[in-house]
């Protein structure tokens, strides 16, 4: 399917009214992508508890169509929920590489953003964006589940602006950005 999606903008380019088709396709594709953001079940530290709370009854992430998948192969989103220690950095990159395009990362909490309260520790990675590209940064230590909601809504806004004409999809642009990521 990825191939078809890559060729699609070029095919539409030669068709009459191709841009209209592209826009409509964009609308549909983006709607489907933003409506079912599946995060990989993956928690690191304190924020993971708030992430669990967000899945649970009161906050109920399922309302937005967000359900956790245990396997990164079936996930779209990686929530970096907690402190990224240096020992954990390589596994995180590996998990990120196992995810299929399009994939997104929410850096949840101060620790994942910049090291947070452990910013001067010898064992903590100062920001997960040093190893993988991050779509949404979420402040707080830990952020409340409502804040995580807000982050997902922001991510949905971002997805809404994706265009297959720009190569967003199971497509080269993001692949260049992330698949060839040199191991730190």
């Amino acid at each position, binding site marked *: 399917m990825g191939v078809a999606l890559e060729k699609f903008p070029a095919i539409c380019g030669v068709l009459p009214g191709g841009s209209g088709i592209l826009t409509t396709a964009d609308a549909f594709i983006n709607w489907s992508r933003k409506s079912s953001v599946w995060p990989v079940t993956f928690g690191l530290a304190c924020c993971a508890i708030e992430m669990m709370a967000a899945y649970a009854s009161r906050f109920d992430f399922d309302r937005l169509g967000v359900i956790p998948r245990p396997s990164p*192969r079936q996930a779209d989103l990686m929530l970096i929920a907690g402190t990224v220690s240096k020992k954990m950095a390589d596994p995180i990159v590996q998990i990120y590489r196992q995810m299929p*395009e399009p994939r997104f990362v929410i850096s949840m909490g101060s620790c994942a953003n910049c090291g947070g309260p452990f910013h001067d520790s010898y064992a903590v990675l100062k920001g997960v964006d040093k190893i993988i590209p991050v779509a949404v940064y979420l402040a707080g230590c830990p952020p409340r589940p409502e804040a995580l909601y807000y982050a997902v809504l922001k991510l949905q806004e971002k997805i809404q602006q994706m265009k297959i004409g720009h190569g967003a999809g199971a497509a080269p642009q993001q692949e260049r950005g992330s698949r060839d990521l040199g191991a730190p």
Partner: protein
Amino acid sequence: MSETEKTPSSSAAKSAALLPEPVFTEGPWVLLPHRAWPTEMWASPWKLPRYRRGAMMLAGLLLLGTGAALLIGEIAPWADMLHARLMLAMATFGLPPPAVMCVWGALQIALLIGIFILAPVVIVWWERKISAHIQSRFGPMRTGGFHGWLQTAADGLKLLLKENITPQHADSWVHRLAPAVALVPALVAFAPVSFGQELSAADIDIGTLYIFAMTGVSVLGIMMAGWASANKYSLLGGLRSAAQLVSYELPRTFAVVPVLMFAGSLNLSQIVAAQQGYWGEGYGFALLPRWFIFYPVVGQLSFIIFLIASIAETNRTPFDIPEAESELVSGFHTEYSGIKFSLFFMAEYGAMLLSCLLMASFFLGGGSAPLPFLRFIPSWAWFLSKAVVLVFCFLWFRWTFPRMRVDRLMDFCWKFLLPWSFANIAFAGLYLLL
């Protein structure tokens, strides 16, 4: 027990002796505004307007469905009419009858595939809603407006457009073939199912045998997936599932044997036909429908064995060992992404629907109404509603039970279900003898 609650009076008296009277001081901070605690929900849910609204909505939906079914009526006459028109139209073009058969067959197949594709979409959404309501939450609410009814469609479209990864070390041909091998048998097995009066795509005489033969093939797909993924979790999941599916195939098949003995046929339509009528009809009042589930002892036993074995066959909790999330990540489909993963998903839900349809046919009288005065509702509506109730049971079990351990699972099958299904055949023979 030592930890039983102390009576409040004694504990209060004791602490009062130790501590002075409680004093409250006012602080400078602001307390949170009132939050919705579940306490009022537990006190009396019917006092909550949203609870009443939800119940009314469900009742309305039920009435709407009944009304629609009444409007349409039996489908078989419509189909006959359509068939006659088609023959007439094609005869005017001078096409021979085999061509009509081809076109008619293609139409039937398209309809079945449509059901097969649509049913998982609806069932998955319904499962998410049911699980959510069991778990005191809402489930999908946003996608598509009304209660997230388009959620699964969005999921499916997204999965279709996701990158399709074949792992580097995987056996790529087997890896790609596995979802198809898992899906196609589940799809093909729908052919002989009788959806109502004279309503089956292929009314073949060995229908039951055919269905069991076909569903038996899908284990191959799961094993292929587990083996070809080059992932240890997948391998373990695939092996577990091979053992499980092959084992539970036996009690599942033997549980149907009494039904076949009573009906005297392997044809699903005739099995359903054998369950028409009511006990006590001869005396002027209808007590119970002559469904096989109401045959004393034999019927209930074979129904329960068939239900349990079907849950195991469709890899659902408490028998979801092949894809045990907390042990094997996602079991045999750990390495599958995008469309291939969704094919597995569809195969699972298709198999589940098939089991429910079979149970409705074998044990619940197919399209026959439970009581004579309800016969005005068309048979296909009865059939579907029975299947829907059974699907609900499947979902309900899934979200209630823990998972069994793999060795216990095998013990349960070989040491409990299988002997009882044999015994049940003997009971059925006794019953027929008397």
